[in-house]
């Protein structure tokens, strides 16, 4: 719960991004900046390019023009460094159904290499205590989602990039995740998410509406 306190942990800038998909312009001249204390929600109708923009910002898709800057340097100049400081969680959660939540979490957090006690703590906070040795195929969709989200607790990354993290979560899960994001932002981290869920009362909330018209 106590990440190293740098001066400004997060400073991600996008300048004049332009992206096309199948000859259809998703966005152009898009500039944004995310720094410590920000919670950026990408909104817009289906097909507006939310996930595409998120993958661009995460450094997973280079099919764009414009500039992405991490602490003022082009993002791909030192990609491994950036990769260690941002946590990307996509639609696909990388949870293996044949493995237990504990085994899954150990792989998901391998780069941070937390000790087993910390993994148990994360599972407990995710409401999975008692299920840590049950293969994930016997868990519900919401519980599998919680396994994927438990890695947020065991990681030190200051920047979270989450694609539709509220999918399949129940009401308690939604408010738990909102609390986590709020805490991250308060600690000086930053969160970028796509969601149709109305986030309210979280300080630092910024919204970016992507248009869906071609």
């Amino acid at each position: 719960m106590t990440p190293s306190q740098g001066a400004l942990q997060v400073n991600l800038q996008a300048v004049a991004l332009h992206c096309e998909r199948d000859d259809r312009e998703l966005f152009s001249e898009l500039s944004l900046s995310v720094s410590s204390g920000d919670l950026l929600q990408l909104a817009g109708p289906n097909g507006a390019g939310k996930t595409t923009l998120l993958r661009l910002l995460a450094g997973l898709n280079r099919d764009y023009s414009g500039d992405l800057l991490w602490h003022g340097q082009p993002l791909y100049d030192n990609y491994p460094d950036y990769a260690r400081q941002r946590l990307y969680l996509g639609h696909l959660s990388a949870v293996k159904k044949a493995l237990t939540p504990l085994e899954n979490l150990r792989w998901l957090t391998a780069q941070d290499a937390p000790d087993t006690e910390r993994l148990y703590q994360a599972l407990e906070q995710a409401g999975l205590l008692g299920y840590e040795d049950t293969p994930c195929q016997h868990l519900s969709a919401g519980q599998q989602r919680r396994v994927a989200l438990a890695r947020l607790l065991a990681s030190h990354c200051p920047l979270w990039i989450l694609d539709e993290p509220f999918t399949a979560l129940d009401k308690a899960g939604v408010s738990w995740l909102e609390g986590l994001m709020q805490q991250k932002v308060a600690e000086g981290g930053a969160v970028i998410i796509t969601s149709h869920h109305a986030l309210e009362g979280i300080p630092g909330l910024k919204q970016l509406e992507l248009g869906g018209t071609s």
Partner: protein
Amino acid sequence: MSLVSATVRRDLLLAARNPGEWANPLMFFLMVAALFPLAVDPDPVFLGKIAGGVIWVAALLATLLSLDSLFRADVDDGSLEQWLASGESLFALTLGKALVHWCISGLPLTLMSPLLGLMLNLPGEAYTALILSLAVGTPVLSLLGAVGAALTASLRSGGLLLTLLILPLYVPVLIFAASAVYHAGIGMAYNGQVAMLGAMLALAVALTPFAAGAALKLNLSR
């Protein structure tokens, strides 16, 4: 490097949970050797002559059978996306995947091969050559196969394409390995063939992970 070792550990754990996945190619390997004498000719002298070739063809096809799923599950559930997101080198990751694949396919094939040699009346002098050629040759099959599996990872039915892509690359391995076993059986030196297999292995370790990594990146950057 910790993600690589975690991946190796996770894949071995997955293999232990789903024994069917790796046991099927082994059964295939065993079946070929069991059915061959029934279908062709049970004459021990004849069988002894062709044993090395039959075992190697069966090992090659069994490896091919197990390759299709090498990366597909990881593409489907998002594990591969997390690899790319981790910023770790894809070289080490694909090398690790190929190593795990060899541990659950090539290694058991190598360990089982003396039994098949017995079933096919392999000449006594050829056992060392058989085990040696499989121990050096099957890692090459796994490494080359990883390139094909990476190229076809996001295709729904990439099995046929994978076979067409990879089989020509397997032919040199098959020729040198079968030749080593045959020459050992008739009492001739076979170290030249094994040296060639070793050279192929060195080349495959150095080059194929680059190709497989690039192919995976291509698959996911859309």
